[in-house]
């Protein structure tokens, strides 16, 4: 079957999709967006967390056919997503993408990455929250969404919001550090304004 949907603000069409395929497979194998990771494929690790119409979900548990006409945001689009949010209020739920914006979008070519990162991405690097990095994309999407709805989360809030994202390397301490850091930086930026 054919599935049309929007990924990171850009219209996408996937063809010859097997009916049992997950959104995760379509992103990774058909659209060339392997940032969302395939660690368990049963909703028990969060590595494939993406936003579906703004809501964090496990892409492995969304049937490809279910995303017809809907908007998906992945880690690959996180910097743009955060950028749109800070530019024009919430980037969240079910927004449309104007055609100019869609035209401007492009995958950053390798080598030409002048590191345009969202605050939470930068915080993960700075805090040492990345080791093997396999859990990182899902954690970033989840942490970004947490900070979008709760700018000053307590440690317990962070733990609850990230309790669906397994990490096997870090013992989570530096992930907590990273989310605290991103929140603190946002706070400082706010004060500066």
């Amino acid at each position, binding site marked *: 079957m054919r599935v049309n949907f929007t990924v990171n603000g850009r219209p996408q069409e996937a063809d010859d999709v097997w*009916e049992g395929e997950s959104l995760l497979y379509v992103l990774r194998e058909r659209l060339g967006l392997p940032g969302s990771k395939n660690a368990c494929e049963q909703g028990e690790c969060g590595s494939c967390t993406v936003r579906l119409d703004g809501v964090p*979900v496990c892409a492995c548990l969304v049937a490809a056919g279910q995303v017809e006409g809907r908007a998906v945001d992945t880690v690959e689009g996180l910097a743009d997503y955060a950028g749109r949010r800070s530019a024009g209020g919430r980037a969240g739920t079910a927004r449309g993408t104007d055609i100019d914006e869609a035209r401007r979008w492009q995958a950053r070519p390798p080598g030409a990455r002048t590191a345009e990162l969202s605050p939470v991405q930068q915080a993960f690097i700075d805090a040492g929250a990345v080791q093997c990095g396999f859990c990182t994309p899902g954690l970033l999407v989840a942490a970004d969404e947490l900070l979008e709805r709760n700018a000053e989360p307590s440690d317990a809030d962070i733990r609850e919001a990230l309790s669906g994202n397994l990490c096997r390397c870090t013992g989570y301490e530096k992930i907590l550090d990273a989310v605290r850091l991103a929140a603190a930086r946002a706070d400082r930026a706010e004060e500066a304004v």
Partner: protein
Amino acid sequence: MDFLRPASWEEALAAKAEHPTAVPIAGGTDVMVEINFDHRRPEYLLDLNRIGELYEWEVGERDVRLGAAVPYTRIMDHLRAELPGLALASHTVGSPQIRNRGSVGGNLGAASPAGDAHPALLAAGADVEAVSVRGTRLIPVEEFYTGVKRNALEPDELIRAVRIRKADGPQAFSKVGTRNAMVIAVCAFGLALHPGTRTVRTGIGSAAPTPVRARAAEDFLQAALAEGGFWDSGRIITPSVARQFAELAAGACNPIDDVRGSAEYRRHAVAVMARRTLGWTWDAYRGNERSASCA
């Protein structure tokens, strides 16, 4: 495999009538696991995501009519007052990502004894709205579970909504898992006090082939509360009453030994949860009584 994408409820019912083997999929949190792991290859997947009314709820005089596909997160956020037991249970489902997709309708459709919503539904009292092109019928939730992962739906029926009694008193839900988050129930217990009718209802999960009510425990407690005048006096429930209630709750279990826990532990844990949830709900009831009488 075929992927059916009805745009309306009527189309969905027609599709289910035409293809009774079609597997409905809403949040996908059960169905997709089975597909990803090659446990299931249904002939048809029937996508319910486009049917808006399944994602809505209405708060009525007696019931909340909860659309079958309302995600757990929305129940936690919006129905905590009306459905406190179910809101607590919703909070224990999987992970935040799963709670954003999974729904009570899915729990009922899968009818796993470990489904987190079941004990809360049993305790609150609920009817499943089963609909087909032939019409609608209401199935009391205690009659809905017919066996391990089997339910009372006819092949052409879909779950439209669940009509859940609004709380008229304190409710509690408690679940044992061997991890502090994202865990399937080893066993679970739901309790609802219904001061209006001076009744109590319970629900036990994962400790029998189907979710069950602990009827003997309910009967015992109702009688004890009535005889002791507890509803009126708001006195602390005597430990012996709580203990017997707990034992009777454990007696309602018919658990198995499996990789998640032993049968003996499940019985034991259900007893502990029964005693604790009774304590919490009764404390809340007494607190409410007191604040009502103060006012």
